[in-house]
């Protein structure tokens, strides 16, 4: 049976007390990669615990939400199911009682459930998943937990966009607590950060099917594009198939885009004759031929000019007829300068 909602923690008891509902609680200081404090609720028949004891705790997360004052509030807290005194490393390695070194402390959670909601933060570095945990039987109360998801490129986790609503996932997470001052109050937040995630059951099959389809699509595309079959096979035989497939597809798309852009540019590019003419010819406005008198003079000059042969026009040696008047004016000016 896989764990649906489980916490395993080891640390030192820092404080014993009661919460506002009268439940017995203890604060566990976990001096792991990042020092964290967790508050666990304990049932009344828990063993005698003392401050400073090193313990191993197994428990679960309880969560619920309520609507009050036009605002939905979400609550989640940790419950300790079993607490046992931790062994020192001397006891573990040598079998002798005593010693003060208890080894590394950590806190890990294991969850399995369905993704109900997902969101991204403003920076795009962190995502959030709301996971409805699997129930063992119908009588069990529903529990949903919020987990934080690292979306940075260096993350080892699967792409956040691949996770869809209603996907069945199982994940391993760490708990890091942060203390913040909000107004005059000091508020403690327990963040559940995802360390590893995988699709489970039907979602995994669906995901694998998608990858296979993608693989077939790439092979077909390669064949259509007349790439070598070895190249296509190499692309799909990478260990990280999905990444390789995505990269390869991106390359193909880039190539296609470059080709399409080149074709488009070739279409849009004016013919050499026109371009040459436009380069040489100033516009009417540039020459200041907007006056009606000048326009008439220009048209008269155009009438006087002999017809230009079409071959010359095509070769760009002589300007086309419609620009004849302007060209005449321009060439006259040039002649004037030379003289």
């Amino acid at each position, binding site marked *: 049976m*896989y*764990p649906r909602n489980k916490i395993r923690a080891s640390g030192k008891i820092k404080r014993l007390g009661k919460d506002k509902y009268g439940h017995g609680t203890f604060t566990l200081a976990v*001096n*792991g*990669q990042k020092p964290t404090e967790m508050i666990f609720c304990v049932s009344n028949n828990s063993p005698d615990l003392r401050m400073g004891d090193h313990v191993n705790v197994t428990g679960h997360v309880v969560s619920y939400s309520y609507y009050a004052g036009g605002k939905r509030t979400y609550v989640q807290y940790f419950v300790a199911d079993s607490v046992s005194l931790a062994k*020192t*490393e*001397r006891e573990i*390695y*040598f079998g*002798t009682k*005593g*010693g*003060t*070194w208890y*080894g*590394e402390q*950590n806190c*890990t959670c*294991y969850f*399995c459930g369905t993704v109900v909601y997902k969101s991204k933060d403003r920076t795009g570095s962190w995502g959030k998943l709301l996971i409805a945990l699997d129930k063992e039987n119908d009588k069990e109360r529903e529990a949903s937990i919020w987990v934080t998801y690292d979306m940075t490129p260096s993350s*080892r*986790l699967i792409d956040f966009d691949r996770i869809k609503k209603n996907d069945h996932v*199982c994940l*391993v997470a760490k708990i890091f607590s942060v203390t913040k001052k909000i107004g005059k109050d000091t508020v403690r937040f327990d963040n559940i950060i995802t*360390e*590893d995630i*995988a699709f*489970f059951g039907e979602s*995994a099959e669906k995901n694998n099917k998608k990858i296979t389809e993608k693989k077939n699509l790439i092979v077909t595309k390669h064949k259509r594009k007349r790439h070598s079959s070895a190249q296509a096979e190499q692309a799909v035989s990478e260990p990280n198939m999905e990444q390789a497939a995505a990269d390869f597809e991106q390359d193909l798309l880039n190539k296609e885009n470059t080709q399409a852009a080149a074709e488009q540019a070739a279409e849009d590019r004016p013919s050499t004759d026109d371009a040459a003419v436009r380069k040489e010819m100033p516009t009417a406005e540039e020459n200041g031929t907007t006056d009606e008198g000048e326009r008439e003079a220009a048209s008269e000059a155009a009438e006087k000019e002999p017809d230009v042969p079409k071959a010359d026009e095509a070769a760009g040696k002589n300007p086309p007829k419609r620009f004849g008047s302007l060209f005449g004016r321009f060439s006259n000016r040039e002649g004037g300068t030379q003289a």
Partner: protein
Amino acid sequence: MRNEIKAVGRITGYVRDEFGNRNIVLHVSDKDKKQVKFVLDNEPKGIKRNDFVEISGHITAFSYHSQIFEKDSYVQYFVADEMKKAPSILEEQFGLPGKYVENQHIRIILEGKFKGYTVSKNSEEWCEVSVMIDSSGMDKRPNTVKVSCSLNRFGKTIKGLKKDDTVAMIVGVRTPKKEFHGQPVVFENLFALDVFGKKQN
């Protein structure tokens, strides 16, 4: 007599040391990140770079006279006897392939003859304890391993020991990186996490 190393970490590279031995570089993402080198006796099969591995091995130490530098040098290094892939947490808990391996650590378990201790010149809090351990591995020589101990924590135990008493230690590793002749050098410092002794009858 015990001389064991247990480590879990990720292989970040294969290198060759100054003696020509083939080493693997293990990155242990513990509370403070460590980079430890292990000499390989046998070439590992089916283990690649970036794989998470479990290593069990031993520690070897010896001193030699360098003819080039004309001075005595003392060397201690780790030897990997067995190496296998470490299962990820998802694999352990759900039977699914995962990428994250929990409980990365390195521990050295020593049990041998106490040979004495020297207080550090820089700090009176620290001393260096010499322990003669069993000759293990290919070379059948006894090894004298030097381990740093905090006198504040274990001073009473260490001062109560006599020469050739049996001492047991659980040792951790720190790997500070320092610049040496313009090049970064990773030191492997051993420090005691727990020390207890047994007087000779």
